[in-house]
């Protein structure tokens, strides 16, 4: 469980400190979801009677979120020409 927390943090870092592509942001987001899912799953192994239903819900929601993220990516790359982070200027 602690290891999953570590993975979560690594993915968070990878998301925030990404340099070039927006796709790597989405990938790191997925990695965060995976870490959370695995953490939830491993929690049941520590001897507590814990329901595993929430893990399934989490997984579903992460899939939806990934697809909406990809849709956003497509829209962005249509309007800005690419998915390079340095071309996303607010002004």
């Amino acid at each position, binding site marked *: 469980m602690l290891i999953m927390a570590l993975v979560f943090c690594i993915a968070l870092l990878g*998301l*925030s400190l990404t340099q070039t592509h927006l796709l790597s942001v989405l990938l790191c987001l997925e990695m965060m979801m995976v870490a959370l899912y695995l953490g939830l799953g491993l929690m049941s192994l520590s001897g507590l009677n814990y329901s595993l239903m929430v893990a399934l819900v989490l997984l579903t929601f992460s899939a939806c979120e990934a697809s909406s993220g990809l849709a956003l990516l497509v829209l962005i790359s249509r309007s800005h020409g690419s998915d390079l*982070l340095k071309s996303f200027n*607010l*002004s």
Partner: protein
Amino acid sequence: MVGMCGMLSLTSLLLMIVYLFSKSKSDIAQAIKYSGYLNSILLLLLLMNDESEMLFLKWEWVKLGGYSLTVSFRYDIYTCCFFVVALYVTWNILMFSFYYMASDPRVELFCKYLGLFLVAMLLLVSAESLFQLLIGWEGVGIMSYLLISWWYARSDANTAALQAIFYNRVGDIGLIVMLVWSLVNIYDWTFTSLYALSLVNIFFLGGVVLAATGKSAQLGLHPWLPAAMEGPTPVSSLLHSSTMVVAGVFLLIRFSSLIQLDSLIQMVVFLLGTMTTLFSAICALAQNDMKKVVAFSTASQLGLMVTAVGAGVPQLAFLHICMHAFFKAMLFMCSGGYIHGLQNEQDVRKMGGFMNAAPVTTVCLFIGSAALMGTPYLAGFFSKDPIIEAINVSNMNSWAIGLVLLATSFTAAYSFRLLYMASGSTSRMLVLQPMNEDYGNLVGPLQRLCYGSIIAGVGFVYFFSPLQANILSLPITLKLSALFVTVVGALIAWNVMKLLHEGGEVNLNYLSFEAQVGFYSIIMHKVMPKAWMNLGEGYQMQVLDRGWTELVLPQGLGENYKLLADNVNQAQTSLIKMYIAIMMLVMFVVGLLVVNF
């Protein structure tokens, strides 16, 4: 009798002031001539009456609480003799200035200035109150400025006049210290109460010495006197040889009884006079401008007068003032005659052979130089020789005595050099010069002053019994020392001139110690102000104001802020990338904090 004498003198002074407002220059000359007659009658009456001094407190002017300012005159033997001499010399100089300034459109104003100067000088010598002395002192200073810069379109003349004002002003500090001290300590400014003091402060006497140094061009404050030769020759002969520059010595003579109370100040006065004498005599040997040679000669004689005061014989110093006035004014007038005859050429290297071209002037130059050297029984002998005898038998510094004797020999040397180069030897002037001395206004004054130079010595000594006992027993070497060194100086000068100036060659070295007046002018007027300005501008302005202060406060802080701003700017680009990073980082940090607390 006493009152009548005073009335006579004041009448003459008032008459002169009235006539100064007239437009005609001959009126001014007549006024001065008759004032001269009146005042010499005054002197005769004084003699007959055998009174040594009289006071004439005239008019209460301003009341200041316990003390009141008065216009008060003091006529003692010094004042009366000086009145006679000064008026005689001034009358002659006025007549000479009719000749010299004949082509000047403002000659009436010139005569008026000379008259005004005379009034200020007479106020100075007849002052009983130090305040009146200050009025006369400042008056002569101002007239000196106006007269030196007579040809005011010439920048050298303006510089010289300003120089005179500056150096006199430094001396005036001494005079004001005197006034302040006497007001604070004895609540009175009159000479009678000052002479009654038995213990005098060093500030007061230091003020006297400083005032004399400034006005009489002693060693520390001397450069203005040679520079004052920028003025016309009548100005040089009246102010800067006979009358104004002796005001400082006159002050010393007035306070000589107080100076003798303090041995340190007496020693200072003695040494100051000695060094001035020698220094000026050295510089006179190397000058090429005729008027500057005579100016340095004046400075040397002033040093001798101050030395006499320091040696304890102020009456002899006063006698020398009177004698010196005659022959020095005549020397300046001879220079003026030569200069006019050569179309304003003052350099002795371009003169020569005037013995035949201008005989009267040359003869007067010779007699004046002989009197200056102390030739027996001419005017200078009766004052200069006793001074040197008195110095020889005094218990002062013997090195200083040696310097005075050396200066005396140099007097003979530079006089001889002047005579040789200006009137002897070969003629180096340009041909076809309008050298003409057939003017009554040139020859008349020269003649009169010539008679004065020859007879005045005998006359004064015959009519006035000395107030202080003469030294009557001296060894032969000391008694004849002045004569001996004079003869030696003249002989050496004759030989040197013969050797060096055989075919009319001249010495062109102008960078030597003597020719640059000991480098004093350069150091005080250029090197030292430049050093101070470098310290001020170079250090203060450039290093501090434009350097460190700028760097530390405005510019330096700006640089620091720029660095900080550069770093902060990075977070404020409008790129999404940065905002994602910041958001995630903040969440991470907040999450850590929440977990820990």
